[in-house]
């Protein structure tokens, strides 16, 4: 059986002839924690809404658990859970009543699941307090509890830590990691907290103005975001082999122009330089690049589209 749970092909969405997502194609595999990253209006929420059946694609297809028909997709969605924009909650009902109503609506027979879900998000002791008296963080956690009620196979979460305090953010992160590892739930998550995503995601999709600009795994991204030395020489073609043979350095990337990116033993740059020189290769540039996810993101999506707060976090998606 294929481990591809969601297959998005050439998805396009237009509103009033304005294209908000253009030709998006990607796959979500079992066990992934996929981060959708992009500035306001990049199309993250639109993609999630299309997966959830709230909006219809203008072009392209979305297959979930192999289903593409309306009926099949509706059935597939019953194996998923979503938290998009506003968390699920009736304001006049208590947390427990909200989950009970959801349980009835979903036709779930197991009432004990309500207690488990409330306990998972630390809302088991809020009593009969109506949701309208909850803090934003509590509402977010209730939304996650609602998501967990039916033991989903895929969770789709739009800005799940939005409005949470640092303690709440850590709690949600740990919960999501636990769900991914222990319950084998595949997660698709969007967040403006890039540092947060970097502690969660196994894969990333970077979006800009409705287009996917990069689809990359966490390992690849870490490599790209890793500090490295850029080495340019008078004979770049010899550098990889030379460094491998003489210094056993293999973590090297050759740029299109021929310059080499060195990710390994970068604190020994003097020795590396000396080795190259002694073997007839003259370094013309040795430049240290320190990179992180946010810088990488900025380079990718363009600085002018990005808003930062004091901790250099990118603003929330619309």
């Amino acid at each position: 059986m294929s481990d591809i749970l969601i297959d998005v092909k050439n998805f396009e969405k237009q509103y009033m002839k304005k294209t908000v997502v253009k030709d998006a194609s990607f796959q979500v595999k079992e066990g992934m924690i996929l981060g959708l990253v992009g500035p306001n209006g990049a199309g993250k929420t639109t993609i999630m809404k299309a997966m959830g059946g709230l909006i219809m694609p203008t072009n392209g297809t979305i297959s979930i658990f192999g289903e593409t028909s309306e009926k099949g997709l509706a059935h597939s969605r019953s194996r998923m859970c979503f938290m998009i924009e506003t968390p699920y909650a009736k304001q006049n009902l208590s947390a427990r009543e909200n989950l009970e109503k959801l349980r009835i609506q979903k036709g779930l027979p197991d009432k004990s699941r309500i207690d488990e879900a409330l306990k998972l998000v630390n809302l088991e002791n809020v009593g009969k307090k109506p949701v309208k008296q909850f803090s934003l963080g509590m509402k977010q956690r209730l939304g996650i509890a609602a998501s967990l009620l039916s033991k989903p196979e895929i969770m789709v979460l739009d800005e799940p830590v939005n409005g949470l305090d640092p303690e709440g953010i850590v709690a949600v992160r740990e919960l999501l990691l636990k769900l991914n590892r222990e319950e084998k739930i595949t997660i698709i998550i969007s967040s403006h907290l890039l540092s947060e995503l970097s502690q969660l995601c196994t894969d990333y999709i970077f979006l800009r103005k409705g287009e996917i600009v990069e689809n990359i795994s966490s390992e690849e991204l870490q490599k790209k975001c890793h500090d490295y030395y850029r080495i340019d020489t008078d004979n770049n073609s010899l550098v990889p082999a030379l460094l491998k043979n003489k210094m056993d350095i293999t973590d090297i990337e050759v740029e299109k122009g021929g310059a080499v990116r060195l990710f390994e033993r970068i604190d020994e740059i003097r020795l590396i330089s000396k080795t190259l020189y002694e073997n007839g290769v003259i370094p013309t540039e040795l430049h240290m690049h320190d990179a992180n996810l946010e810088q990488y993101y900025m380079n990718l999506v363009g600085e002018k589209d990005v808003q930062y707060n004091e901790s250099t976090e990118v603003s929330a998606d619309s």
Partner: protein
Amino acid sequence: MYNIMKAQKYQLIRDNVTYYIMLAGVIIVWIVAIMITEEGMPLDHMKGCGTITDAGLNFYSVFLTLIFTARICGDDIKDKTINYEILSGGKKSAVYFGRLFTSIIMGVIVYLLYCVLPVILMTAVFGWGEALPVREGVIRLALGFVPVLRFIIMFAVITFLTRSSLGSVALGFILILGESLIEMMIQEDFLPIDINKAAPFMASASMDVISTYNYKMDYINGKDVQVLKDMMPVSTIAMLVGSALVMGIIVSAAGYAVFSKKDMD
């Protein structure tokens, strides 16, 4: 769809606003009753059967069903409850018709409380009266729900299309007043249309047919009273019920066709 209706029931029972609306409805009925009495038409004059024909409770229950339908359909659109039902695999047809049927059931409850119960109470206190036989009263009381049903379907469709409970209350109010105005113009011969012929197309006209069909004034026990000349023919009953069902199906199907094609915000 059944699960959505059960969830709606759970929500309505636990929502205090449901009871506030019901209580406000009772208070308004009492205020209206006092006003009728003070305007020279004592309740004992009206009696049980007169409550069916003269009190205008059908019309009153339409306003209450408007508020409930707006809450059942509109509030769930506003707070994204409907979105979450679709996200969890609910079909749009289940979301739409589940709420439509819940609104109709709520309409039945409102009708029983504000139209049927007053007739029972008035009969218990003042007797049935002379205006119409009990059998005819029961038929007309049962038929009285037919125009209410038509209004509920229109309100639900308006709410799903406007996606706003406030907007639907406003438009529903305009619809009620608009229909009433046309019906009044027909009654006063400003429009050359037979009210019986207008009934299949207008909920308020059908309401009028049910409450005032075939009456005449008579002098009984020293009082001028409105009495029934003849029973309502089966053909009229069939016309009222049939037209309500046909119009209800057409309006609700058209509303669903638009709702199912529109993206959810």
